[in-house]
């Protein structure tokens, strides 16, 4: 029995019961992508936009495995380093599948894959003007996060650490501050490496987490996906339950009277 069963997450015009957004990259094959995404209990999955291989048009496709009727497909702009490419990419995605909810990321650097926040703001403004519902990848700066909310993004997605690094949350304080001020959902994106990282992100108050590499690169992808599903539920429940205070010193769990040697 947990109170989280009817705990809904609204992003833009969509409503979710799962708070784990799955990434679809890096899996060894589409069958594993599908199995892990199911084990994770995800309801939304990111996809990238790339050129069709003209020479082999019949090659099987991710969407042959991930049913757009069953999952909310979230096109992203992974690989875009300027606003123009990002906007162009998402217009194509919308035409391809009619998806209006999108994940914007405009990168600043191939080594860290950190966002270029100035270009990101520019792209977000253009997309919002074009009626997209924009979920936006950003750094962990609360000032930038608030600006992105103010211009109309439907969700702000601060990074925990570099994409694919698996190092968890570099700056929990900033994630907490971003959440405390936000009216839109905060999704921790990038950096989660194992279950406790996902639980920690949710305990800080994140409304959801986006996980890809940690599931796709685990030795047992589906088992890790189930771990992530449980960890996100655990972290959410712990956040709602209200944790005990931290104490410098000890506090006995057993009564300190009634001893037989008193």
């Amino acid at each position, binding site marked *: 029995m947990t109170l989280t069963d009817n705990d809904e997450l609204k992003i833009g015009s969509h409503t979710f019961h799962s708070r784990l957004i799955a*990434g*679809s*990259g*890096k*899996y060894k094959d*589409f069958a594993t*992508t599908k199995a892990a995404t199911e084990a994770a209990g995800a309801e939304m999955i*990111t*996809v*990238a*936009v*790339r*050129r*069709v291989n*003209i020479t082999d*048009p*019949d090659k099987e*496709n*991710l*969407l042959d495995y991930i049913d*757009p009727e069953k999952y909310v*497909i979230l*096109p*992203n702009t*992974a690989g875009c380093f300027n606003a123009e490419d990002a906007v*162009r990419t998402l*217009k*194509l*995605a919308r*035409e*391809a*599948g009619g998806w209006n909810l999108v994940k914007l990321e405009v990168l600043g650097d191939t080594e860290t894959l950190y966002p270029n926040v100035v270009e990101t703001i520019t792209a977000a403004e253009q997309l919002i003007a074009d009626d997209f519902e924009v979920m936006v990848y950003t750094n962990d700066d609360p000032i930038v996060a608030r600006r992105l909310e103010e211009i109309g993004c439907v969700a702000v997605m601060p990074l925990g650490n570099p*994409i*694919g690094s698996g190092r968890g949350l570099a700056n929990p304080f900033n994630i907490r501050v971003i959440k405390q001020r936000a009216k839109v959902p905060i999704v921790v994106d990038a950096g989660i490496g194992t279950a406790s990282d996902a639980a920690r992100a949710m305990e800080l108050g994140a409304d959801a987490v*986006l996980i*890809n*590499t940690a599931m796709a690169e685990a030795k047992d992808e589906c088992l890790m996906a189930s771990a992530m599903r449980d960890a996100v539920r655990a972290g959410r429940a712990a956040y709602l339950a209200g944790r005990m205070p931290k104490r410098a010193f000890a506090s006995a769990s057993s009564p300190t009277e009634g001893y037989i040697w008193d």
Partner: protein
Amino acid sequence: MEIHLNGEQKQVTAANIAELLCELGMENRMIAIERNLEVVPKSKYNETALSNGDRIEVVHMIGGG
């Protein structure tokens, strides 16, 4: 007629986008088309004529985080 298709030169006989997709064997796919940096709506595939030198992009969704 020669067009730039997904970054490569290609000889095609198609007169418009709809015919191009047939020629490529890509009808009824979940794809999107860009002609000279402009997205072409599915509803306009027939009426969107190809011209020599057009820059055509045909994209689809793949795995990505």
